[in-house]
């Protein structure tokens, strides 16, 4: 058998393997990638800290330095309590950058090329990256909750509402991680990906995270009220009992439903784009 025949035979074998694998295998392959990424997390726990630097700085800066000036009636303690759910949502936003960085690093280091050569489902790699980001978000939220309690944040609703809030945060974060994975595969440069942190923080700023949208000028207010971050923050505040649903347009009137719709839409769009981008060789 010649070298060319060998190569052709190997290619046929790979294609056959891909075609004949059961439908459950993307999950199994995806779990392998999750496991691989979690091992990296175990070896380098500073990743969790990196995920929390922005949200922690935000709570301390806005809670203590700007809080008195921004709080309605100057009640800084109540302001801090409403700020912590916004920090939870920022953890989800930071997850986007972490996922993008992880995907870009794998491309940059040639790991993605190695995965492509293995007899595994194409969707499994981005699926696994999103899964490991979900675990990282859960860990980050746990740490952030502890910090929240220290600055005076409390849950004022029942255990089911609180559980729903955490699940919604994780689902929203999971959706954003798909956006990050697609961007990482598209940009393919870790240094450039890290520049995304400023626009992401800007998007969180351009929401009801720090001030009520009613205090903003008309155009800015419209953007803030229709922002997915505003919907998520309002939903989480409502579920934790850290604020009432404000009068506003449809997204703020039904924040939980809006956040779910945004999350499903982001997964559907960016999940497809990420899978296509991963399958594409260039």
């Amino acid at each position: 058998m010649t070298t060319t025949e060998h190569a052709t035979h190997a290619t046929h074998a790979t294609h056959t393997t891909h075609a004949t694998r059961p439908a459950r295998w993307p999950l199994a392959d995806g779990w392998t990638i999750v496991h691989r990424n979690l091992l990296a997390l175990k070896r380098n726990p500073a990743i969790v800290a990196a995920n929390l630097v922005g949200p922690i700085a935000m709570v301390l800066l806005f809670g203590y330095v700007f809080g008195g000036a921004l709080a309605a009636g100057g009640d800084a303690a109540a302001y801090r309590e409403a700020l912590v759910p916004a920090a939870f949502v920022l953890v989800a936003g930071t997850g986007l950058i972490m996922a993008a960085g992880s995907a870009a690093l794998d491309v940059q280091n040639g790991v993605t090329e190695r995965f492509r050569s293995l007899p595994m489902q194409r969707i499994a790699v981005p699926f696994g990256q999103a899964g490991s980001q979900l675990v990282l978000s859960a860990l980050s939220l746990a740490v952030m909750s502890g910090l929240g309690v220290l600055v005076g944040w409390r849950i004022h609703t029942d255990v089911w509402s609180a559980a729903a809030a955490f699940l919604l945060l994780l689902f929203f974060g999971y959706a954003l991680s798909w956006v990050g994975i697609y961007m990482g595969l598209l940009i393919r440069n870790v240094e450039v990906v890290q520049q995304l942190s400023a626009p992401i923080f800007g998007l969180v700023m351009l929401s009801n995270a720090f001030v009520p949208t009613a205090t903003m000028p008309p155009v800015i207010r419209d953007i803030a009220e229709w922002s997915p971050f505003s919907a998520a923050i309002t939903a989480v505040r409502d579920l934790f009992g850290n604020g009432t649903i404000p009068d506003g347009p449809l997204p703020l009137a039904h924040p939980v439903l809006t956040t779910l719709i945004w999350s499903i839409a982001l997964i559907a769009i960016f999940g497809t784009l990420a899978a296509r981008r991963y399958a594409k060789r260039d």
Partner: protein
Amino acid sequence: MRNTFTMAYRGLVKIRRTPEQLFDVTLQPIIFTLMFTYIFGGAISGDVASYLPVIIPGILVQTVITTSVVTGTQLREDMDKGVFDRFRSLPIARIAPLSGALLADTVRYAIATTLTFTMGYLMGFRPEGGLGAVVVAALLVIACSWAISWIFAFFGVIARTASSVQGISMLVLFPLTFLSNAFVPVDTMPNWLQWFVNVNPVSHLVTAVRELVNNGAFTSDAWISLAGAAVIVAIFAPLTVRAYMRKA
């Protein structure tokens, strides 16, 4: 002196060849001014127009002081690339590359200052102190930032990498710029924080600039800022020069 100007010219040529170096002095004042004014202005001062006299001096000081970090990082990059080894072989004053870099950076501060005031003007800010007071305020900020750049130049000479210079500098600057009266009134902060904000040199500079542009008054805060700048230069200029001469 001529060597210093030649090296300063080199710094300006570098900026012309790589204009992305100016992103921090061009984008930061624009983004920060828009963001703070339109998002927080209504909540802090009741409306955007009332917040502009408070925020423009604050953004100006924060932007220009943050820009002074570049002095240290670029100095370190040049030293790492071996450019300074080449300068050593030239018949020029050994201090010229250092003093030239510091002089060239005053152009960056001038750009940031002009942009911040222009941005404020476009948004409706009208300095009550008049044009003369605005020019004096701009010169005060540039002078103080030039003095502060000696600290970062010192870090640039003694640090191992450009990223470590950036890291150390931001660790120093973040609390100084944000734990000040640049963005919100001091009396809205917790008591334990007010003490630090009141002794923070950045707060003195912000107050001095506010008094100049809004009232045309050269107050005690301006004198404190100038005295502070003189002290920084008196301490860090000899330290930086000594460390630089040892390495150059």
